[in-house]
């Protein structure tokens, strides 16, 4: 490709995933009420215990007075919770028996996103659960995983086919009373992924869920539950996109991870929801609760690359309950144009000799506002706990902002907690140096930003690291010059 073509692609590329798929949908009426929740539960053919749990959450949510928390460092108009469609599903042509019966329109939509679901062209080595608006449209490599006793399916199927596991772990890390958005999710969640890795099994491939919001005025409320039994290992990745629309859409997901003794869960996110246009019109409100519970000698590692959404509000956290458990959080959050992000983590050290690492890289361009908010809490019994936190911010231009709110609470005198932070700006001298060597300005910015984020990107599974690098470059279009 010539340099001109590269530049053109960069400057005219805009948001690549903004298309809309024409499918007939099955929706519930706008607004939230007990009837709506009963309707969702019924459409999914859920057992009574699931409905009861939803209703308990809904009643608790009502008690919160429809007012979301105001402490995040983000600004947006009040959300009208009665103006949202809480369930929207593409109408199935018939009962799905295999992947080859998936609606061709839907298959095409995922193909456009680079997620082929058809048998012959699946991503090698990655099992995918594809979620379209409120429902899962298919999960690949299921049989192969089943040979090892691994369960990987949509949340709805798990409720039906593995009720004991779901009952045991649902809400065990993020209870329905946890916070405003988690409570809302507990009442109305429609689908999501479920994975269970049995004792001592190393999952032979990446598990991955691809989330797509398509319908207008809908919220997406998915719920993911991953349980790694004793000594098991799993690497899981989620990706997400949405069409370009000039109204805001709400995405309030919950992710729960359970790492039983000696287990390891690696959870990676490449978040690329529609960010809104250059003037801040439209875009997804990404209000997400993610938390993992780590028992003895287990390890939970969160890696996130957050480039999309008008507003991001999420704090993937670890409760390091068991002795010698390990928590990690690697994050790149990029805000361009009028995007706002308030993101970080919580590391709760409960067990002895628990260790945590936090590496956060915030990149702000345009009028983007980027906030790191993180809590390191060492409880009284957490003898010998250790934490290392590093928060770096990179500014591009002079109209954006970077903010850091580290909270440290230490109740045990033997704990060691370290926090380092830097803020830097892409300098004229760095850009000129690259350009003098023949590298075009946009490519230079992308290279410098990727260098800044390298510590985090190298934690991603190989195939996705390349994708994430491209994404960082694309998300910065028009941020220089």
């Amino acid at each position, binding site marked *: 490709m010539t*340099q001109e073509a590269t530049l053109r692609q960069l400057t005219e590329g805009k948001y690549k995933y903004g298309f809309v798929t024409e499918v007939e949908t099955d929706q519930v009426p706008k607004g939230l009420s007990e009837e709506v929740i009963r309707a969702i539960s019924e459409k999914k053919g859920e057992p009574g215990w699931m409905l009861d749990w939803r209703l308990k959450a809904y009643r608790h949510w009502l008690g919160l007075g429809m007012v979301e928390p105001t402490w995040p460092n983000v600004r947006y108009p009040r959300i009208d919770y009665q103006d949202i469609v809480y369930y929207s599903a593409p109408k199935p042509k018939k009962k799905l028996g295999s992947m080859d019966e998936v609606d061709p329109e839907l298959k095409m939509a995922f193909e456009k996103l680079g997620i082929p679901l058809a048998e012959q062209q699946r991503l090698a080595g990655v099992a995918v659960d594809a979620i379209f608006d409120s429902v899962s449209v298919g999960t690949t490599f299921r049989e192969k995983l089943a040979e090892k006793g691994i369960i990987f399916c949509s949340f709805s199927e798990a409720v039906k086919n593995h009720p004991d596991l779901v009952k045991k772990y649902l809400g065990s890390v993020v209870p329905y009373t946890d916070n405003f958005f988690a409570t809302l999710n507990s009442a109305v969640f429609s689908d999501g992924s479920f994975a269970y890795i049995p004792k001592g099994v190393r999952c032979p491939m990446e598990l991955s869920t691809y989330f797509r919001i398509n319908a207008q005025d809908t919220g997406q409320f998915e719920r993911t539950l991953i349980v790694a039994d004793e000594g098991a290992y799993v690497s899981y990745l989620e990706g997400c996109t949405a069409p370009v629309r000039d109204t805001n859409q709400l995405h309030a997901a919950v992710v729960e991870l359970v790492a039983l003794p000696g287990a390891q869960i690696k959870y990676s996110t490449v978040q690329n929801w529609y960010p809104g246009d250059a003037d801040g019109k439209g875009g997804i409100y990404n209000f997400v609760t993610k938390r993992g519970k780590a028992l003895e000698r287990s390890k939970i590692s969160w890696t996130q690359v957050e480039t999309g959404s008008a507003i991001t509000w999420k704090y993937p956290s670890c409760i390091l309950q068991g002795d010698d458990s390990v928590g990690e959080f690697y994050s790149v959050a990029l805000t361009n144009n009028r995007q706002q992000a308030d993101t970080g983590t919580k590391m709760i050290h409960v067990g002895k000799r628990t260790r945590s690492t936090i590496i956060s890289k915030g990149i702000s361009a345009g009028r983007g506002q980027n906030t790191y908010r993180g809590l390191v809490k060492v409880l009284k019994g957490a003898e010998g706990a250790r934490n290392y936190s590093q928060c770096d911010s990179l500014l591009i231009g002079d109209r954006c902002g970077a903010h850091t709110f580290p909270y440290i609470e230490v109740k045990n005198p033997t704990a060691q907690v370290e926090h380092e932070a830097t803020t830097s700006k892409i300098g004229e001298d*760095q850009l*000129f140096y*690259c350009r*003098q*060597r*023949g*590298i075009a300005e946009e*490519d230079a910015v992308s290279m410098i930003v990727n260098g800044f984020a390298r510590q985090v990107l190298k934690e991603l599974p190989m195939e996705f690291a390349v994708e994430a690098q491209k994404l960082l470059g694309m998300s910065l279009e028009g941020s220089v010059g």
Partner: protein
Amino acid sequence: MRKGTYTMLSIQGLKAKVADRDILHGLDLEVRAGEVHAIMGPNGSGKSTLAGVLAGRETYAVTAGKVTFEGEDLLALAPEKRAAKGIFLAFQYPVEIPGVGNMYFLRTAFNALRRARGEEELDAMDFLALARERMKLVKMDPSFANRSVNEGFSGGEKKRNEILQMAVLEPKLAILDEVDSGLDIDALRVVADGVNALRSAERAMIVVTHYQRLLDYIRPDHVHVMANGRIVTSGGPELALELEKRGYGWIEKEPPARPAAAEARP
């Protein structure tokens, strides 16, 4: 070596400023293929500004004059286009780019230049072979390949890295801006050996330096002395020796009557 086959770079009446301060006050210079020109002068005489203007640094504004490179208006081109035409600037203060591997950076630059010239790109393996060979030229330890660009490099390592980049990118015109500053004698020799190895009949060099010392190692064809944003005198290598003996004071006090540009031709 056949020298001076054609005029590669021609500068006429060049004036430039930084912010509101005029730095270059009408500078003339002609450089022919194969020649090495040394530009000397006291601090603040405009040497580095000249280097920056030729490379297209945007902090400098050209207010008058003309610069043609191989017959083309150089000043109309963006820095990366000038690089594609074959202009290379070895920086006085090489810039650090954290997290970007040295070889990755160099390969990106190398292939960007090739693309711009309509040439085939080199893949990672072939490029590495080329880079390894050139690294020997500047006696650079292979471990530098994987370190971030200039990050944590010593002064000498940074300068050697500049020469390595030059050796890989093979420019037509190399401008070396105070490539000797901050170098001890051993490092200076390595850098100079690298530069000398790259001299050829097709390549021209402009060596900007404050000290004569460098010119003991890189022997120029022409020496120009700058003061107050102009070339005030030009000569052969012996001029540098005279400067070494007498300092810059006499030039500023009694600028020689001879017009600089005419004297530049032997």
